[in-house]
Structures are given as C-alpha cells and as structure tokens.
C-alpha cells in the first residue's frame, strides 16, 4: 500500500531526507511522526521472551520440588 506522507518530523541534521529510505516510521494522520527504533523493539521483545523463560524455569523448579 502506498500513500504520500509528510516527513518533516522525522528529519533533522543527523538524519537528512536521503537517510530516510528504508526507515520504518510511525504514521499518524498523514505525517511520519517517529522513526521506529528496531533495536529498541528487539530489546522489548527479548525482555519478554526472557521473562517467559524465567517463568518456565520457576515452574519447573516448583514442580520438581513438588515431586522430590
């Protein structure tokens, strides 16, 4: 899907127009409002995955404890 969006809000000196190609941005009412930080997204997901593993270990410990 394509739609022209205004990118005023996601460019600055460190990130000129040319650098935007390939960026994932959050678009709100036709304006790109924020470049989505893929690393931060990964970090958030990794944290959640870790929490899941920890929980499984906890459960495993508890059920082992229960048997032993």
């Amino acid at each position, binding site marked *: *899907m*394509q*739609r*022209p969006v205004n990118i005023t809000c996601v460019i600055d000196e460190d990130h000129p127009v040319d650098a935007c190609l390939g960026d994932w941005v959050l*678009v709100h*009412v036709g304006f790109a409002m924020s470049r989505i930080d893929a690393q931060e997204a990964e970090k958030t997901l990794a944290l959640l995955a870790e929490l899941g593993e920890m929980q499984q270990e906890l459960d495993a410990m508890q059920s082992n404890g229960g048997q032993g």
Partner: protein
Amino acid sequence: MNRPADKPGQHLAADTITLAHGAGGKAMRQLIDTVFVAGFANNLLSPLEDQARLDLDDLLGEGDQLAMTTDCYVVDPLFFPGGDIGKLAVAGTVNDLAVGGAIPRYLSCGMIIEEGLPLDTLRRVVASMKSTADAAGVRIVTGDTKVVHRGAADKLFINTAGIGVIPRGIHIASQRARPGDAILINGHIGDHGAAIADARGEMSLHTDIQSDCRPLNALVQTMLAACPDIHCLRDATRGGVATVLNEFAQASDACLRIDDTRLPIRAEVRGLCELLGLDPLYLANEGKLLAVVPADAADAVLAAMRADPAGEHSVCIGHVAEAPTGSVILQTGFGGERIMDMLVGEQLPRIC
C-alpha cells in the same frame, strides 16, 4: 453478423445519454436495440415483448422450488479494481440465488441513468454484465431503462431481479445452525470494501487490492454435491462477515464462536484497516460466502471448496456452540474473547 447497430441510420446520434433516451421515442428504441439487445445478445430478450416468456418444463426438470430475488446496485466509482457496477449487479443477484441452493437461470435488468452519462460507459457496463452472466450461466431476459435529470441520480443505478431453481432435498436456512457445526468461509475477508475505499480516492491511498466480486453459483453447487445437508449459507456483502454471523446466531438461537487467528485477511487489507482504524470483519465482500455445515461433513465440503477457483483459500473459522444464544463471540489470538456485534450505521475511519 447483422446486428441492428450495423445498419446504416441506426447509430446513436450523440455520445452521451440524454433525457430523449428515456422518453419512449426513437432515441430510446435505438438505445435499446444498439446497447441492450445487442449487448445482452440472447433469443429470449430479442423479441422485445413487455415480458420474457420462460419455459416451465425446462425449469421443472431442475428442481421443485423456484427462487426469486431482487437487489439494487449503486456504487461509486462505477469502475473499480476487480470489477464494475455491471459485474456487481449480475454477480450479486446470482449469489443471492445461489446461497439458497438455487441454480440461477434468468435475470432482469432495470437501469436508472443520469443524463450526461457517456454512452461508452454504458456500453462497457453492459458488456461486463453480459460476460459475468455468461460466466454464471444465466441470461438477462427482460429490462427497463429510465433517464433522469442531472443530479436526480448518481450516474447509473442498476436493479437486477433473478429467478433460479432449487433442486429437490436442499434445505438451506439461517435457523439451522446447530451446536457442533463447523463455520466455513471461501477466502479472504474485506477485499471489496477495501478496494472501494481505495478507489474512491478520498484517502489518497494506493493499494493493489482487487474487489473479490464474482459469481459463486458454481462453488455452491460443488459444496452441495459434497454435502447436500448444508445448514446455513449466505454471502457476506454489506455489513461484512460479522453481520452474516450475527444473522445466523440470532435466527438459530445459537452462539457462533469464531477464532480470530484463523480469519483469512490479506496483508494489504489489514494494513489499510490499521491505517484507517477500520475493522475488516465489517467490510463488504462481493464474492465471499459463509457456510455452516455438520461437523462430520466439514472436511469434505472444505476440500470441494478448495478445488473450485472461487474457493482456493477456504478455511474453517469457527464452530457453533450453545450459549450465550444469539451472539457471536470472537476468541482473540490473545486468549481473551469479545462479543462481535452487528455494525451500527456506516463504519467510519477512526483516526485520533
């Protein structure tokens, strides 16, 4: 070929429709001959009596009940990716007959035309109606045309009525959903609504979404061959899948449980819905049907559906349960559930 259009002196003078084309005189006669009779080309229409005369014996050979339906078609724009108002007007009425189990046979075609419509536009619509009718195996056997003042209609409105024959032993009805039954759909949801939203251009979006507009009568016959005892069947047009499911749930006093993760929705349609805050379950479809079938027949029906070009992406999206009666419950991929109600009014994009 000796079509009326080829006779000298019978060409239409103007290249747009004017009030004279609806006034009953020469211009109207020419319009009928050159556009409709020539376009729909069949021997039942050509005598141009005030009524089409249909052979009863012929119909009786196919079943024991006559099915009849009518629908009006208005769409803006008239031509959209994947279809046009003519294809819609034939496929829509064919589908309304088909989902009753009927074999569609004859269609009527009434047109209300706004003066100023380019004649070429009308020709293209008629050609599209003809090719859709051929594909569905139906004939357009009678019709009427009115031309109205500019502004009294929006370009072109079409009404089609249809007649079909229901074979013996078919009892499709929306009251027949029973606990345990499987709920099937023949493919991706919301394509037509998304294609129209895009084609209107109001939102300045550019997508590759095509309307799913197509006749479903062959698919339905394949399904009935696999399981003559299909309980409910309906095409999900305006109001979308959510509306049909609610109609089944209410008519059957049952609860329809739908698994969110199994709903087939194209990425492009999902993207459009995310962007505009629309729910694909309420988007219109023009080539999708929902079937409620006995659980033990579900696999056979699904296999038959997938073998038909109109059903390649068929899936089972849920099942019928007892309670709460009259409701549709969507099990979200997240383990929660929510009630899926009928739509109130028109679905408006939600932006803030």
